[in-house]
């Protein structure tokens, strides 16, 4: 087992590249997005200026509309390569929901099973798929907020322009929550970080 995860390339080079580019894009988008949100808050709070990017609304928009291409093309290529190489199927399926439950209870008891790091456990599979789905939702709701006239079908699916803003906000919140838990888990099993950097 240990041999296995030490020698074999677990994460191909392209996947690692996508992962770290995605991280940069997500950080830029979230921090500039918070500044944009502050210009016209949906809820009764704003984000502290110190943790936002862009300085003023115009600057934040410049960052946001630049980083969105990074997220978009990076994500598109990630989905494309995962599909054509068959990695998606091999890595993420099947997800046994019984395992999700038993792994979660074990985790809450402080027992993280991490003897074989070359495969994702069921909770990881589910969490990563959720992250992918939320990024897709962020892009789609973002398209409606950006170009509500040009994408009428998407707009109606999101429940109109104002509602698309709320969808966009909640997809962002879900992604932030995912990232927080994700980074916590990586901190608990630092070996995985090494794997995500050098592949094995």
């Amino acid at each position: 087992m240990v041999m296995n995860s030490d020698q074999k390339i677990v994460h191909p080079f392209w996947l690692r590249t996508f992962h770290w580019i995605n991280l940069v894009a997500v950080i830029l988008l979230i921090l500039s997005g918070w500044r944009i949100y502050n210009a016209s808050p949906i809820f009764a709070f704003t984000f502290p200026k110190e943790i936002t990017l862009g300085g003023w609304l115009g600057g934040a928009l410049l960052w946001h509309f630049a980083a969105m291409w990074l997220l978009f093309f990076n994500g598109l290529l990630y989905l494309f390569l995962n599909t054509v190489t068959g990695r998606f199927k091999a890595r993420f399926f099947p997800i046994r929901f019984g395992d999700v439950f038993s792994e979660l209870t074990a985790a809450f008891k402080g027992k993280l099973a991490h003897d074989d790091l070359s495969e994702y456990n069921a909770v990881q599979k589910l969490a990563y798929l959720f992250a992918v789905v939320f990024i897709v939702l962020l892009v789609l709701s973002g398209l409606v907020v950006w170009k509500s006239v040009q994408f009428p079908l998407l707009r109606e699916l999101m429940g109109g322009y104002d509602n698309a803003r709320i969808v966009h906000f909640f997809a962002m919140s879900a992604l932030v929550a995912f990232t927080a838990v994700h980074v916590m888990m990586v901190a608990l099993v630092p070996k995985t970080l090494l794997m995500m950097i050098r592949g094995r």
Partner: protein
Amino acid sequence: MKNRLDKSIIIQEALKELPSPSRRLLMKRAVTLGGLSLLTGCAVTDEKSAENMLMKISMLNDDVQAWLFDPNKLAPTYPESMMTKPFPFNAFYGPEDIPEIDEEDYQLEVSGLVADKHSWTLAELRKLPQTSQVTRHICVEGWSAIGKWGGVTFATFLNHIGADLSAKYVGFKCEDDYYTSIDMPTALHAQTLLTLTYDGQTLPPEYGYPMKLRMPTKLGYKNPKHIVAIFVTNTYPGGYWEDKGYNWFGGS
């Protein structure tokens, strides 16, 4: 392509001509990461190159939006019962500075690539065919509000003045020193109106008396109020907010 070249030359010039202190300041803030300077890579700590890169991408986004823009796609319209009341006042100054314009003294100047350069009185404009629509105004800040504007379809007006419809830009100068410009396809869009009324009444001062160009396919800052001059041109005219860093196309 040519369009982009034009603009990039202008932006280059604008960047060279740095004594524009407000723009410098705004851009400087744009590339300063609040308390998160740790996250800045080398490209980002170099303010000048970061702002150049961001402006270039913004210009690419203009092209993408021009390409996405479907002249036949209409913005949604709403029943009058859905109008936002009161419709918000919004400008780069407070309500106390709304320009006071007298109908007697008012003339709309027309210039540039047009056949007929005579100035228009409000009475003349009111004689052109009038139409109205209830649409959603979307502000760059994110909020939106529904209102009812009436006036002359802008394409009708452009045809009346014999505008060169193959020109790239239509520019606007306003009584409050605001200025902006739009692309010709948007100028010719069926819902682009030179509005003279709001909710059936003469356009009140806070909404842009005597006239506002209303485009439900563009963000609020692209919709000039208190217009005093309209010109058709192939030279990129920029805009008040656009020159400070807002995206020029600004479409939705």
